[in-house]
């Protein structure tokens, strides 16, 4: 991990107010793995005070991509940056997805902006593993498919694809699965991850989930981001340092 000023090379506006920043940093582009994140100081002033964590969305040559939408103060300020501006970036941080495991099919599950880490994961898996992606949202405006492959969509209001949540869709599809050894990679709202954890464990599918929480430091010094370990009742893991990606069996959501 390192702190540096990274220059924004290009800004791509996707549908439904999703911003994609292409940022120049050979160091980060070289080092970062899918599921790892960057902690960004958006203003020199004390508001917002904390850095804001963003997954690496993709990597291309000397650049990495960030994907976000405007939630509050921080993302609003970030969205006002222009190509050529610099951002203060701390990273790479955290532990990403484990893709050296023995599996043949990657089942990618993203809810809303939870898809952010998956273009990069898809890039790394493509050609090596079978990929199926299940993408969910409240309505079709929440469904982001940028950089993904082999996509099935679920929306809660039925405005696109399956009507229901993405875990229900997965459950339906899982019934049909064969004997190919699968591994799930998921990121999204905690309610989604909870339902998924149960489903994956019932079906005995290896499952990695990327968790989210408020962070101050992002690298293990503030103790602000605990998550219950399932191995040891007396122990919290840290989302920023031990995660954000955990095997679903490691933690209690």
């Amino acid at each position, binding site marked *: 991990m390192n702190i540096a000023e990274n220059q924004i090379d290009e800004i791509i506006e996707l549908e439904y107010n999703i911003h994609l920043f292409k940022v120049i940093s050979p160091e980060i582009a070289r080092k970062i793995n899918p599921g790892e994140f960057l902690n960004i100081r958006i203003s020199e002033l004390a508001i917002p*005070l904390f850095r804001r964590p963003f997954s690496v969305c993709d990597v291309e040559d000397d650049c990495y991509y960030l994907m976000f939408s405007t939630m509050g103060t921080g993302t609003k300020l970030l969205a006002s940056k222009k190509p050529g501006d610099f951002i203060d970036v701390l990273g790479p941080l955290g532990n990403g997805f484990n893709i050296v495991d023995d599996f043949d099919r990657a089942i990618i599950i993203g809810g809303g902006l939870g898809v952010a880490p998956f273009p990069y994961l898809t890039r790394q898996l493509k050609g090596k593993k079978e990929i199926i992606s299940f993408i969910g949202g409240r309505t079709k405006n929440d469904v982001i498919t940028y950089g993904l492959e082999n996509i099935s969509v679920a929306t809660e209001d039925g405005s696109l694809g399956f009507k229901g949540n993405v875990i229900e869709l997965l459950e339906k599809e899982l019934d049909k699965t064969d004997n190919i050894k699968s591994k799930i990679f998921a990121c999204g709202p905690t309610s989604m991850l909870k339902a998924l954890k149960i489903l994956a464990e019932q079906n005995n599918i290896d499952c990695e989930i990327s968790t989210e*929480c408020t962070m101050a*430091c992002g690298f293990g*010094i503030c103790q602000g*981001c*605990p998550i219950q370990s399932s191995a040891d009742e007396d122990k919290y893991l840290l989302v920023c340092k031990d995660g954000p990606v955990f095997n679903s069996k490691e933690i209690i959501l």
Partner: protein
Amino acid sequence: MSKVNLNVKIGNLTLRNPIMLASGTVGYGNEISEFIDLKKIGAIVTKSISLKPRKGNKPQRIMETAAGMLNAIGLANVGIEKFIKEKIPFLKKHDVPIICNIAASTIEEYVECVSMLEHEDGIHAFEINVSCPNVKEGGLQFGNDIKMVGKITEKVRANTTKPIIIKLSPNVSYISDFAQAAKKEGADAVSAINTLVGTAFNIKTRKPKLYNITGGLSGPAIKPIALAKVFEIHRKVDIPIIGIGGIMNWQDAVEFMIAGSSAVQLGTVNFIDPTAAEKVLKGLTDYCNENNIEQVSSITGSYQLD
């Protein structure tokens, strides 16, 4: 350009410079050592250690406020045994003075902790946390009770020859009374301030935003309050003060020294910019050079009230 003497004396403790890292904001130094050279720092104050390991509070533990943060970590720590076995050796390697911050819920526990660490030569001093707002026992019950602060100081003093620093609660009417009590019972210095009690509610769910309901406020928001507390102690009590609260840059550090601090601690800023301590040290050194200050310690309490 003349060479500044950055040494400061805090009672029996001499530090190579007045820039310290505050308790609870750098863990045990491990992670931050990737960003700064600990050899250059005045001292590192450990996360509060208690006799037994503490798991800490459930999440939500932290949140952002206007120019500040609330935390209710709940003194999560590895406990004193693991601290001795695993953490001290690491810090010793880095050649940085360690000040061990101790939290406890009884006087006996403070004494026991101090006794266990008395012969650890890696530990240069104790900072006694009588002011954590985020635990049920000890914490503010102690920090806001002047007799208790006196008694804790007395008992700890009786059990160690190392320098003792009492870390004071700002959640009181007159912090100088507490500094006086600490001095009377033999404390070498006081640290001021710990966090201020604060809270926040979610207006949709009407639940507190922190699991612990209240938390401790830190960061730039509290700087004016912290400065006033340091100034109050400096005017009323003759004891070295370690100034803490919202320091973000070297200008803030100088301001705390002018207000009466012999040294300062950086807390929340470490989360935002883990390289801050080195920047503050450089800024302070340049300030001294530019103003022909030969001894950094001469800045302490140098306010001009005409």
